[in-house]
Each structure stands twice: as C-alpha cells, then as structure tokens.
C-alpha cells in the first residue's frame, strides 16, 4: 500500500498570526514539503492544478520535475490534473516528459475542477464537465498508445497524422487515476479503462465514498479487469496530530474555523464526526484510517492533505515527522496483515514494465521528406531490455 500527501497549493492567511505567505514562499514551501515527505518515508507526493488565486500550482509538471530532480524514491502525482480545461495533447506531452525525467517515478490523477469561471478562460463550459472529461481522456489514452493518431471530437481541433512526443518511457503510458466525489460517470470511466479510482473523501461523509467505490469496483469487474476487490482504489484523508488529543484540537481549531472550505460552518466536532477529518493523537489517526477499509475495502493508496488553511511550514513539517515516524509504519503493517494475497498493489512504472514483458523504446523518428529515409532503418535494432538508460525505480 502507498502512503503519501496531496496539496491543493492554497495561499491562505494564517488565522493565528494574520500573516499571508507570498506566492514565492508558498511555492518554495511546497518543494520543502515534498522533500520532507520523501525523507520521512512516504511513498507519494501529489500536487493540484489551479488557474486562479489564491492557488499557486498552475504549472504542475514544472514543480514535479523540479522535485523529481531533488528526490530519489518518492512517486510524484497530481491531485488533480484538469482533464476538462487542459488540452489533452499538452497533458500527453507534459507528463510523458515528466515520466522520462523522473525515470517513471510518476502517475497522474484526472479531475474536472469545480470552479465555474475557470472553464471559459480556457474556452470551455463547466456544464460540459463530464463530456469534456470523457472525450479528452479518450484522446489522451490514445495519444500515449498509438504512434499516429487521427482523431476528431467535439471539443478540440481535429488531429490528422499527429504523433505526441516524447513517446512514453519504455513504451509504457503513465498509470492514471480518476478522482471524483459524486459523479457515477467518472467511477464508470475509471472502471472501463481499468484505471485507478481516487475518492477525495476529505470534505464529505463516508457514505459518498462508499457509494462511489462500490460502483467503481462492480464495474471494474464488469469490464473484465479482475474481481471487484482487485480494483485500484485511493482515498484522501485529512489529519492534524499532537501527542495529546486536546493539544491537537486546541492548535488546529482556529485553522479549522477559518478554513476556506468549511470555515464558519459546522463545528470542528461536527465535521470530524461526519467526515474523515481526524484531529487528535497519532493513535487516533491510525484507528480512523484503518476504519476506511470497512467501507472502501482493501485499497492501494492513502493520501493526506497536510498543508492547507494557512498552517505554517514549520507545523506542516512537524506533522510530516509524526506521520512518517508514528503513523505510517503502523498502518503499513496493519493494512498488510489485513489484505488478502490476491489484492494487488497500485501499479507503478516498474510493475507495468514487468507486466508488459519488459520495456521497449518507442521513439518515433521523423521520415526524411526528400529521400523517404528514416534513421531507424539505418540503425541496428536495439535490444528491448537496454533501451531505458535510467534505472527504473520500484
């Protein structure tokens, strides 16, 4: 099972000091947080994508590539990649590049985005959210799997003889998750492709998550990718910890009460009862997280939101220490003991390469307009197993 963190990338005033970080501070804090996540032994760091204040992560592959260059193990992902308003051609190119630069140490999570005004800025309409997610992803899926794509759809310029470059590393497209809270169409989409399904679970009751995960598992089996309990499920979570439960509640309450999403609404007590938010001791977080399995089944990825609502960097780094030292090692052991042998891990680049019987270079060489010659024809055939010059991480 993979454990990690995901960030929204909000620039929020610290309600206890009244201080608002600059964009530069927020961006560099994001890097520090990602590096710390690797240092404390987490498996995944994921960043959101937003194109409006108060958010900074408008260029996720730039940030992720920068992190990739300064880390060795941690898998880089998104939370989420806007499949509705981002050109699928650019997603194919940007993330294939990231895949090469990170030696396959990445995957992505598709999401629709729920901010109405963002859509028209990119020439789209939020009312087309679901059809855009379906059509754009269908194209992205082909761009990574077919060398030459002829395509025509409703929402983008047709493509004639288009080759997305670079081709995926080792000929293996990045693994994709689809995130959604309540749209059955997205659970259906993830099931159809045999992709992962991620329920960002954090601001809503467990009943939403259960309904979506059950639908995804049922349809994953329907489409022949394996049994329902072998489907690839990820969950969000949100925690704040101190050794003593009361200290955690006292310290987190002002951040909760003023948080952009739920502030000035329900009390901290109501919200922790009704959603997965857990504010308390590391032991309470362990118990709550293990209870997710009761309604989501054996799942593959647990991500927590740690750096939001104006929490200072120092506090976030302390939280990551607690997570890495006291929470995740216990959860790894407990979840592993509960999980039946036939339930797979989340796919990684290495496991997908192995499943494909090894990697192969899929570089597409241009054909000379005049002579019709291709450099491929003049080169000796490269053995499959040695084309990836960079080591594939586990």
């Amino acid at each position, binding site marked *: 099972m993979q454990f990690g963190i995901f960030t929204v990338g909000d620039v929020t005033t610290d309600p206890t000091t009244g201080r608002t970080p600059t964009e530069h501070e927020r961006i560099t804090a994001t890097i520090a947080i990602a590096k710390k996540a690797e240092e404390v032994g987490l498996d995944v760091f994921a960043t959101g994508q937003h194109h409006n204040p108060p958010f900074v992560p408008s260029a996720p592959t730039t940030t992720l590539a920068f992190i990739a260059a300064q880390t060795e193990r941690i898998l880089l992902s998104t939370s989420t990649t806007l499949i509705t308003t981002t050109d699928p051609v650019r997603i194919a190119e940007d993330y294939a590049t990231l895949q090469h630069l990170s030696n396959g140490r990445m995957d992505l999570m598709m999401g629709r985005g729920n901010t109405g005004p963002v859509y028209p800025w990119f020439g789209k309409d939020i009312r087309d959210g679901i059809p855009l997610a379906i059509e754009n992803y*269908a194209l992205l899926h082909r761009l990574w799997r077919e060398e030459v794509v002829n395509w025509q759809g409703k929402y983008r310029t047709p493509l004639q003889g288009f080759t997305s470059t670079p081709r995926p590393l080792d000929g293996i497209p990045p693994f994709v998750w689809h995130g959604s809270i309540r749209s059955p169409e997205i659970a*259906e989409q993830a099931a159809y492709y045999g992709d992962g399904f991620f329920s960002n679970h954090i*601001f809503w009751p467990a009943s939403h998550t259960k*309904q979506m995960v059950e639908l995804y598992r049922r349809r994953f089996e329907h489409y022949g990718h394996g049994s329902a309990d072998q489907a690839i499920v990820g969950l969000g979570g949100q925690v704040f910890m101190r050794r003593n439960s009361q200290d955690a509640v006292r310290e987190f309450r002002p951040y909760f009460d003023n948080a952009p999403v739920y502030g000035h609404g329900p009390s901290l007590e109501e919200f922790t009862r009704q959603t997965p938010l857990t504010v308390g001791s590391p032991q309470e977080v362990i118990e709550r997280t293990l209870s997710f399995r009761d309604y989501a089944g054996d799942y593959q990825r647990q991500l927590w939101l740690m750096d939001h609502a104006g929490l200072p960097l120092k506090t976030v780094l302390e939280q990551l220490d607690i997570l890495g030292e006291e929470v995740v090692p216990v959860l790894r052991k407990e979840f592993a003991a509960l999980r039946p042998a036939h339930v797979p891990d989340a796919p990684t680049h290495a496991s997908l390469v192995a499943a494909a019987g090894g990697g192969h270079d899929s570089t597409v060489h241009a054909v000379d307009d005049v002579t019709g010659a291709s450099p491929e024809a003049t080169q000796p055939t490269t053995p499959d197993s040695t084309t990836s010059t960079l080591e594939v991480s586990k």
Partner: protein
Amino acid sequence: MNPFHLAVITAGVTQPSSTRLLADRLTAATVAALAPREVVVEVVDVRDVAHDLTNNVLTGFASPELQVRLDAITEADAVIVATPIYAASYSGLFKMLVDVLPQDALRDTPVLLGATGGTARHSLAIDHALRPLFAHLGALVAPVAVFAASEDWGSTDAGRLGERIERAGRTFAALVTGQPRVERIDPFADVTPFESLLSGASR
C-alpha cells in the same frame, strides 16, 4: 396495499407556531380524505435543522440529522408544505431546505401549498412566490392552496378557514390517488454504460 408516505415541511419558528398548526390541519384533512388508505406522516420542522441547513449550504453535504429528513421528503408519495410569509415571500429557512434538496427530489411529486402571515393582504404570496418555486422544481402543485392570516384563527367566520383546509385536503387527496409515483432513478444502481458516455449519449 403499501402505506402512503406523506412528508410535511413546516417552517414556522415560534413555539407554538401557527404555521405548524396549519401544516397539522392540512395533514389531518388530507389523511381523512385518503381514508381508509393507511398514511405514514413524516413531519420535517425546519427549525430543528436550522444550523444543519447552514452547514449543508457551506459544506455541500447534509448532517445525518438533516439527511434523514431530506430522504423522507425525497421518498414521499406526496408533500405538504407550510411556510410563514416574510417580506412578501417564503421564509429564508424554508428556501434553504428547498435549496439543499437533491435535484429532482420533488419532480412529479404532488405538493399542497400552505402559508401563514400577519394579514390577508399577503395571501397572494402563495401564488407569486411559492407556486413558481414548486413549478420550477417540477412538482405537481395542487390548484387549491391555503393561506391563513392571523385573523383567520380567531375570526367569527371560524368556519371559513376550516372549510378551506378541508377542501384543500379533499382535493389534494383526489390529486394524489390514481397518481402512481414515478420511480426515482438511482444513478449508482443504474449506471450509464461507458460506451454510451463515449458516444456522447446521456441517459
């Protein structure tokens, strides 16, 4: 025969409330007119979930306490509503409940309208505020509605309000019987196959 499920929404805030009184009397008249059909009545008093409604608007989900009530309304065979008239319209709390109902919760559901106000001069609020709202929601709004002004409760014409309530209950019962309720589609049970989604078709 299955019992008939009648949900009653009442938005009065005082204790006791004339709006609740009107709701109860409309309910009694309807239940009497539906006899001998067994009727299960679920009363949703908006005041009981006032904070939960604010929280739902802010967070996007209902507390368990509110969810039970939303389910009762969504699953009802017919709904009676009663709201005080504030500033020429239904009360804000009443509208918050309507705002957080699931989409299509009242589509094809027979609805009987009731309202209370200080004077009979507000009586047309039923027709210029409540009726368009429930038309928008796709409800089958009963043509006969009841407005109860303060003076109606103590009028020497005491028979008048009682008669109007009785008539509203009787005509509402006539509307709902022989109106088999349209089954709700559960999008999680009855999923649109992906091939249909891909080809651009929706349900």
